[in-house]
């Protein structure tokens, strides 16, 4: 049973087509990589699914609903940007999440806070970018959601943290949940994906299982990606 169903999605910003006739069907119990050059529609696709961008053509269904109150309560979105107010401390953010999301596990969040060595009473404005990203990751992963939408969760962090983020993602895996992981750091990450989506200039170039790609093409996803997108870039 697919938990995300997208049909003929079209999204323009002004005269610029950012997503072009995209159709996709994603099942729960999978970790899916969303790969593509920067500015090719990955973030926009995630924002549409998260309910942050309306005004699109086509259908987008999460757990049988168009993005609405229900889909927001069952999906966890991690944007690239920092969305916490500068005065907010981890405890303040936890207060908000605990109030609005029934699937938020405060104890787990506190544990992850210790694991990442963050202080619970430090305001965001005193945190480095890496610390802010870790905090936002904690907020997402402390929820037991059905859908996880992660936009470049490893951008701008050191290799040790990247490794920790992958661990957290794998530990978070559940048969009932779908995790979509948008990234351009493919080589580090491809082993954790069941399947990958290649999104090139808003179009679906490929949607395939990682091991099938290796069997069929004899290449890793990273190598295939470079091939597929090298051509488009050199245009």
């Amino acid at each position: 049973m697919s938990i995300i169903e997208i049909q003929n999605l079209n999204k323009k910003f002004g005269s610029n087509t950012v997503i072009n006739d995209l159709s996709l069907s994603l099942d729960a119990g999978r970790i899916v990589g969303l790969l593509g050059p920067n500015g090719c529609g990955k973030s926009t696709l995630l924002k549409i699914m998260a309910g942050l961008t309306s005004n699109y053509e086509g259908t987008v269904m999460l757990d049988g609903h168009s993005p609405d109150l229900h889909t927001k309560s069952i999906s966890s979105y991690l944007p690239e940007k920092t969305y916490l107010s500068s005065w907010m401390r981890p405890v303040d953010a936890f207060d908000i999440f605990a109030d609005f999301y029934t699937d938020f596990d405060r104890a787990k969040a506190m544990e992850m806070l210790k694991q990442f060595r963050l202080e619970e009473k430090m305001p965001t404005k005193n945190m480095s970018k890496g610390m802010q990203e870790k905090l936002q990751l904690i907020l997402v992963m402390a929820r037991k959601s059905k859908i996880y939408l992660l936009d470049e969760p490893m951008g701008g962090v050191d290799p040790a943290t990247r490794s920790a983020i992958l661990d957290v993602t794998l530990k978070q895996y559940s048969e009932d949940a779908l995790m979509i992981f948008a990234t351009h750091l493919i080589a580090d990450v491809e082993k954790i994906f069941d399947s990958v989506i290649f999104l090139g200039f808003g179009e679906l170039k490929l949607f395939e299982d990682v091991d099938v790609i290796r069997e069929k093409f004899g290449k890793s996803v990273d190598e295939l990606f470079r091939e597929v997108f090298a051509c488009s870039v050199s245009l």
Partner: protein
Amino acid sequence: MDNYFDSNTPIYLQLVTLFTIRIAGGEWHPGDRVMSVRDLAVTFKVNPNTVQRALAELERDGLVYTERTSGRFITGEKEKILEARSRLADQEIADFVKQMRQLGYSREQWSALVEEAMKKENI
């Protein structure tokens, strides 16, 4: 740890090899319970479904078995383990020979090298 995997073989097959090595070498003892899928996934930094697939292969090979109520275990059958070990050893040797040939050594040359190496250090 991350450098275990090569890039053009399916990951589940590489996991099968890695798990078999551990069983054949005794690192995972006969009769032991197999680590949970989640723990294996985190340890090897791979997708849990891929781990599942690899374990299914091991079951087919008879190196691992599932007890309905208690979980997955390494086989206690010594023959199966020895069989797997010699399979792996044959593969290693074949790979070694292929490498040597690629370097331009004939059979006499590389076997002489091996004998020398065995005399030199405690290998």
